[in-house]
């Protein structure tokens, strides 16, 4: 039987070659269950060892292999090549991020923003280890569970036209992670995060396109997190400023 093959087009960029990106076509074999990442690895191992891209776990956990595949942000290790039967398979670096080389993008902007949101459990006073863990009921866990699955793959930033137009926007994943901690019953840091979450370039810059939630491979629902944070910010503002004694 003749081996199935197809063309894989990669948008490449090499700063040592010039500042313009260019496309390069590769012929790759196609096998059952082959993912786009497998095709890229085939190219690097057998055809062109200069092709640069990130990957690690190959099972949708590390979030390293996010790329734009035929125009949509995808985790390439979860994206079957056969889904692109009958149409072009074009792999490009994630949109909206500066490209370092080929398919590798610079996500420092996200990492810096995430750090400002203090993505860890904050306690006003830590209790000693001898008192045991901070316990939580299943209902308390369910309140933030879906926001807790973020793998920092950056697909949501790549799908967000608001971030694409204005990179000052804090962005979907960072705000979803902030919400994850703010709604965790063990956390007491919502007031510390509030000035960052509620500043103009954070939740209020989001115009609710909603595409972040559509492309998220983990069902994190950043759009929901941001809209809920807006509601909470508006309610908090009203209580602080309109209710007697509410500013306390």
């Amino acid at each position, binding site marked *: 039987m003749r081996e199935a093959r197809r063309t894989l087009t990669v948008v490449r960029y090499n*700063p040592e070659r010039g500042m313009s990106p260019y496309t390069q076509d590769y012929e790759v074999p196609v096998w059952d269950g082959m993912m786009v990442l497998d095709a890229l690895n085939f190219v690097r191992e057998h055809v062109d060892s200069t092709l640069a891209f990130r990957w690690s776990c190959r099972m949708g956990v590390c979030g390293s292999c996010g790329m734009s595949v035929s125009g949509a942000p995808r985790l390439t290790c979860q994206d079957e090549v056969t889904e692109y039967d009958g149409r072009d398979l074009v792999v490009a670096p994630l949109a909206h991020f500066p*490209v370092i080389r080929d398919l590798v993008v610079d996500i420092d902007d996200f990492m810096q923003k995430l750090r400002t949101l203090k993505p860890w459990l904050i306690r006003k006073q830590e209790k000693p280890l001898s008192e045991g863990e901070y316990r939580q009921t299943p209902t308390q866990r369910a309140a933030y569970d879906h926001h807790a699955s973020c793998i920092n793959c950056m697909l949501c930033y790549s799908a967000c036209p608001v971030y*694409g137009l204005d990179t000052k926007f804090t962005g979907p994943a960072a705000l979803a992670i902030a919400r994850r901690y703010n709604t965790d019953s063990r956390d007491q840091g919502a007031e510390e995060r509030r000035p960052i979450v509620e500043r103009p370039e954070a939740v209020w810059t989001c115009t609710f396109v909603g595409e972040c939630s559509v492309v998220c491979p983990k069902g994190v629902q950043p759009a929901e997190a941001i*809209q809920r944070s807006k509601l909470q910010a508006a309610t908090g503002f009203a209580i602080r400023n309109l209710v007697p004694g509410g500013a306390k």
Partner: protein
Amino acid sequence: MSLLERAVPPRPLRRRMSPFWWLGNLRYTIFFLREFSAVFLAFYMLFLIVQLALLVAGPDAYRGFHAFITNPWWIALNVIVLLFALIHTLTWLGTIPAVTPMRVGELEAPSLMLLAGALGGFVVASVAVGLLLLWWRW
């Protein structure tokens, strides 16, 4: 800084979004229409204010205005405004499941149920306003 970083200074490629990004996929286009529809709603609000001002100005002023608003092109413009008002209403109602998910304990109301409730409320309110106007006219 490592030796490698010093040897090859990074020159990252910064890309610009196309002005037509909103045609990139259907959901972007629906979002764009949702936001753009606000222009038509603002226009209609201004139109209502002018109408009220002329009503206050007296029967002669309003008679001229009435002749103006019965022009076919003006009616066509109003049909367009109505279409955008519907787009505005339906697309915003469509966001309800994402903005206000309803959870009771560990159970979460299905998105379709929330959407159906919002649309049902919209239809009931519209019919109630319509009936009120008809009753008032008669």
